């Protein structure tokens, strides 16, 4: 485990990020299959969620087992404001981010005093409570059967709710989220978070206000989730509480860990692979859950740092080959 991952030069990562985003941008021209673009849109939502979770878990070392609650809150705020009160979706998106951040602040201030396992347990509880509210406030949320007739995204009179429009709108937010995370990891705050992750006591001794930073990063990661929630609800025009249960939080955590916790590309790799995997496992009718579990156990047992190191090893090997050839 490289503890100095964040002090590495940033240039290669900005480069690989641009290549990745360029690839995402031209992909629909290469493969205009609407079904597949839809799935890739959802993969983008998961990338955004996992990147948000990774800045909390990977950068700051604070485990959350209730992240899906903030995703759900963002989705419901945006969905209820548009479907019940007729707000424009773009304004509702902003409102859902603000609302979710306020709730995250209220949740984070008491719970972030807890450390390690105890924080994980408290966030688990928060997630379950939110889930109960989504089900029980049936007048607003539509109860267990969900909220229907949520409008698609539009700016003024220009509708962007087509498959292609959703794809680009989602991935534009993903691009912003990824750039934000990359910037964060190189900033003063990123270094402070890394210190907290290494040792909270040591960080405090060095003058880092650990509690304040933890609350800030908790709220920031909830903001990522809120955007993802709003994007989700306006792309499928429907939202139901089952999407945001405990297993969903676990799935997000799994994506981050399988991809490689703390690594910049980890959540991207994990979210893309694990959200696309069920599509391919669908061929094994009835076996898919079992296979999914086995893959998860296998990756954790034999690649404990996730899949990201695999990719960076490839890059290093590629570079050393280049150098060997170039240097003669």
């Amino acid at each position, binding site marked *: 485990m490289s503890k100095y991952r964040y002090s590495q030069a940033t240039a290669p990562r900005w480069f690989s990020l641009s290549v990745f985003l360029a690839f995402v941008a031209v992909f629909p021209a290469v493969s205009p299959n609407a079904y597949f673009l839809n799935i890739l849109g959802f993969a983008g939502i998961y990338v955004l969620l996992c990147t948000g979770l990774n800045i909390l878990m990977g950068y700051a070392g604070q485990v959350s087992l209730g992240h899906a609650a903030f995703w759900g809150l963002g989705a419901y705020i945006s969905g209820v404001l548009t479907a019940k009160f007729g707000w424009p979706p773009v304004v509702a998106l902003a409102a859902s981010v603000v609302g979710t951040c306020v709730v995250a602040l209220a949740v984070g201030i008491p719970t972030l*005093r807890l*450390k390690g396992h105890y924080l994980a347990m*408290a966030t688990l509880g928060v997630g379950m*409570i939110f889930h*109960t509210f989504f089900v029980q406030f049936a007048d607003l949320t539509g109860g267990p059967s969900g909220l229907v007739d949520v409008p698609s995204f539009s700016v003024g009179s220009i509708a962007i709710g087509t498959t292609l429009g959703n794809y680009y709108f989602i991935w534009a937010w993903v691009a912003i989220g990824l750039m934000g995370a990359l910037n964060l990891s190189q900033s003063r705050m990123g270094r402070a978070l890394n210190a907290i992750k290494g040792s909270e006591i040591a960080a405090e001794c060095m003058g880092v206000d650990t*509690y304040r930073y933890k609350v800030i990063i908790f709220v920031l990661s909830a903001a990522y989730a809120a955007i993802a929630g709003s994007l989700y609800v306006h792309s499928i025009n429907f939202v139901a509480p089952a999407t945001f249960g405990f297993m969903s939080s676990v799935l997000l955590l799994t994506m981050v860990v399988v991809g490689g916790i703390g690594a910049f590309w980890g959540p991207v790799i994990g979210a893309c692979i694990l959200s696309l995997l069920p599509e391919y496992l669908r061929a094994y009718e009835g076996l*898919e859950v079992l296979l999914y579990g*086995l893959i998860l156990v296998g990756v*954790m047992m034999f*690649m404990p740092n996730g899949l990201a190191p695999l990719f960076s090893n490839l890059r290093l090997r590629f570079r050393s080959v280049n150098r060997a050839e170039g240097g003669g």
Partner: protein
Amino acid sequence: MTELLQLLISGLTIGSVYGLVAVGFCMVYNTTGVINFAQGEFVMLGGMMAATASSGFGWPLPVALVFGVFSVTLIGLIAEKLTFGLSRKPEVLNLIIVTIGLAIVIQGGVMMIWGTFPKELPAFSGEASLKVLGARVTPQAIWVIGVSVLIMAAVGFFMKKSVTGTAMRAASSDRGTASLMGIPVGRLSTLSFAVAAGIGALAGVIITPLTMTSYDHGTLIGLKGFCAAIIGGMGNVYGAFLGGLILGAAEAFAAGSGGSGYEDAVAFLLLIVLLLVRPSGLLGGTGGERVVKV
């Protein structure tokens, strides 16, 4: 008054099951530091195995119950050997995720073999309910509470008096030192996992006649048991069981006082409040290092 007693009895019945699951959590947590998210699945699997043996194979009920418990104990043992034993980097977070994966594997396997249809098990000694101070008590509820208390006492005695139990407590207080003293911490981890699976299966076997069971039945029971363990204190078997009883009673009263639908929220609210006020649990000692002072 009768109504309150009725609620209390149903709360204590489900609470005993939470308590048993919590005891299983404690065993694994104390020897390995891992929160075993597969614990709830063992409960479900125990009920499934016993129901299959009873109605599928046509075995007599007592044999089917014993089969349910022992087959799941064996599965727990094998699962620990295959996952914890072979992991490349047995760090706590990794192992926790391994147990989550294990839970998904068990659920997926059960869904594949038995399908999604609920299974039932006959009550151990008939359905005719007894009257206690005007409240109706089913014989199965007495079985549940009685067996749970017995198991809790047995586990408590084992942890306190036996050599293996003492070794487990040593491992939980300091793994490194325990291992230097010649305590085989790896083998204890296997043992605790198998015993926890067995206790979970037993909880599943005794509650299935009341609630039935199906492939997705384990997750929520597991989470509630986990809450119970926190409420009572992870380090203490009696505390964990007490936590289960409190949780069951709180849920029953919440549901009975018109808050039906909110009983899950009550359980988890209790968890959060307790974490903030007394993170080491009701009977958990001081546990100062678990919270950072701000």
